[in-house]
């Protein structure tokens, strides 16, 4: 009787195991902690849109069968626009949620300390957004990779364009072109401003003012007064939001006049919000950022990417039906997330046998995507650990776009130019030098 009972039990257990086996096989998954700011000032400044872009891509990959038998188990965390919270969330995701890796990060102020902390855990970190050079520069991090261009490139792009167009657009030699550099004083703004200074020095531009301010400053009228005194032809501005809105409002009320304004990402990238703050005043403003995926010519991309861009756009509009002009933020995160999911993860699984940090790191270093191989148009090749910018995608670059009558046009570099830049605001602008 006892033996029959044992046999029955064994049979039941065997059946259960047999039933469970396929389920176990299907449950292979990579656990990814996705960290963006979903609350706090950065959320509205673009971070929430980056979160949406990453989520759209992760959901799409899961819906189309996952990667090499792995499903993505994404755990979304809110950094609350605070560096300390970003670090704590990263640690919580690693220690308590046992994630295999981290992805995301909007704010450079959060990225700089979090990258170092994640490296201590020997976990893989894939940065989709934050751009400050100090995140990677001279740190030789092994497990932190950034698909996005880095901040100094932003500053260099705008100044290179000004140098090239000084004579043609302003009728001045570069040395006579008066340029003011203003920026939020966090890691992001400081780094872009550094690029501006380097670019201005290289091009021989005349920097008449360089000044930082706190993103939460309640008043920027002193800055406006200083700018009036410095009389710049061009203002190079790096900010989040709502500091950009405050500056533009106080600049208009303070009678500040200039010939051109070039923003550098973040608050200048979300045109809907920029227009909501400044109305038609923002017409002919420029912005430096990776090109919007919806502006990339489909025939310049690797086959299949244009369809992916279309899918992201449809999912974006489904998630936010009120959207009028699709923000470049969503596309940036979607593309950079796709780069990881299509190039790094499958290679780590197939070539390096798993999804641990070491396999992911080796796979990332093997990535060699030519121009046109990502939805953002640029390619991908990551700097090795010995390089100054270890982990940086050295094929990524930003472009300068100009908003003209509610449309965005690439105006720099010349190779990608959709139209020539308008470098003198028309008389109808309240900021125009009359």
């Amino acid at each position: 009787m006892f033996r029959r009972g044992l046999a029955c039990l064994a049979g039941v257990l065997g059946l259960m195991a047999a039933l469970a086996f396929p389920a176990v096989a299907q449950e292979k998954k990579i656990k990814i902690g996705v960290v963006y700011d979903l609350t706090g000032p950065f959320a509205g400044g673009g971070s929430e849109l980056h979160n949406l872009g990453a989520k759209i891509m992760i959901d799409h990959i899961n819906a189309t069968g996952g990667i090499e038998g792995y499903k993505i188990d994404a755990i979304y965390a809110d950094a609350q626009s605070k560096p300390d919270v970003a670090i704590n969330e990263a640690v919580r995701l690693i220690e308590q949620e046992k994630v295999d890796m981290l992805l995301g990060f909007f704010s450079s102020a959060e990225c700089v300390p979090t990258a170092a902390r994640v490296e201590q855990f020997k976990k893989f970190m894939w940065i989709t957004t934050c751009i400050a050079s100090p995140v990677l520069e001279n740190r030789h991090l092994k497990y932190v990779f950034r698909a996005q261009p880095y901040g100094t490139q932003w500053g260099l792009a705008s100044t290179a364009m000004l140098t090239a167009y000084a004579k043609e657009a302003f009728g001045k030699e570069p040395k006579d072109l008066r340029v003011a550099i203003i920026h939020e004083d966090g890691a992001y703004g400081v780094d872009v401003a550094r690029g501006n200074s380097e670019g201005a020095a290289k091009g021989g531009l005349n920097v008449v003012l360089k000044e930082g301010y706190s993103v939460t400053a309640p008043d920027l009228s002193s800055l406006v007064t200083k700018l009036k005194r410095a009389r710049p032809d061009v203002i190079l501005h790096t900010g989040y939001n709502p500091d950009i809105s405050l500056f533009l409002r106080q600049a208009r009320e303070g009678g500040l006049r200039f010939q051109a304004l070039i923003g550098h990402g973040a608050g200048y990238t979300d045109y809907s919000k920029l227009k909501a703050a400044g109305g038609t005043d923002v017409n002919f403003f420029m912005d430096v950022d990776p090109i919007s995926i919806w502006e990339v010519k489909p025939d310049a991309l690797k086959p299949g990417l244009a369809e992916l861009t279309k899918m992201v756009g449809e999912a974006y509009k489904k998630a936010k039906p009120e959207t009028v002009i699709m923000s470049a933020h969503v596309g940036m995160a979607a593309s950079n997330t796709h780069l990881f999911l299509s190039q790094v993860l499958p290679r780590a699984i197939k070539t390096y046998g798993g999804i641990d940090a070491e396999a992911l790191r080796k796979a990332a270093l093997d990535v060699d995507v030519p121009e046109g191989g990502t939805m953002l148009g640029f390619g991908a090749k990551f700097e090795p650990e010995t390089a100054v910018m270890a982990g940086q995608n050295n094929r990524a670059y930003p472009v300068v776009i100009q908003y003209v009558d509610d449309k965005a046009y690439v105006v720099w570099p010349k190779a990608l130019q959709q139209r020539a830049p308008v470098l003198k605001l028309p008389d109808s602008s309240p900021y125009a030098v009359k």
Partner: protein
Amino acid sequence: MFDIYLLEAGINGILLGGVLALLALGCNLVFGVIDVVWICYAEMIMMGMYGMFYLVSVYHWPFLLAAPVAIALVGIIGVLLHLIVIAPLLNAAPINQLLATGGVLAFLQALATVLFGIDFRNLGIRMPVIEVSDMYLSYARLLAFGTALAGMIAVYLFLSRTYTGTAIRAISQDRQIMPLMGVDSRKIYLITSLIGGSLAGLAACLLVLQYDVHPFIGLTFGPITFMICVLGGLGNMIGGFVASFIFAEIISVGGLYMDLEWGYVFAFVFFIVTMFVRPRGLLARKS
């Protein structure tokens, strides 16, 4: 040599002072009477700004009609804050009161995030600019300055010329004795909370003309408002008024001659030094 930019910075400082004075007015009134710091004061202003945004931009009410409604709305929030949070803690340790209103701060931020989302919103109203010589003065700021001045005078007249105002002043001088002399302290606290909240609502109506509203706008004004109240002497409305202008001038003129951030550094250094020299504030009440 005459420097028109210095003059402009000085005038901008005065106008910024008006904004800060308006913020400090209600906060000081409440502390002066109830002896509780509304740490969540800036978040109440944020709720008023949202009220204005919805009434004016979404429901298309005229600004002047929406403003009294928004003021009343924040006034009611002030009363509710007193009834639900402050009243049960009136005899509690100050730190508990501070933590409780700090909790309300986080609650209001979270509530606004859930109700209104994280987007920045503005009325899209463009106030005219006054041009004098090469100087440009913001009409919105002039309005805030004038309102702060008028509000200050109105509150002063209310406190000194009316029966209720006299009762408020009396209870602020001695919370234990006045109830024994027939003053209904509960009613006085409620009236004070209503006025304090309404002043936050008034500030909201003027700030919404100058700033985008989002759930975390309080971070921009909260700390500086609290510092001004302490600098002027917590509970001292005239002290708060004076401190606002000192603070604003240091920020504005200091920021003109040095990096903008140095203006704030000097303002904070001034605050710290004052706290050492006059720990109860520039024009502290005698206890």
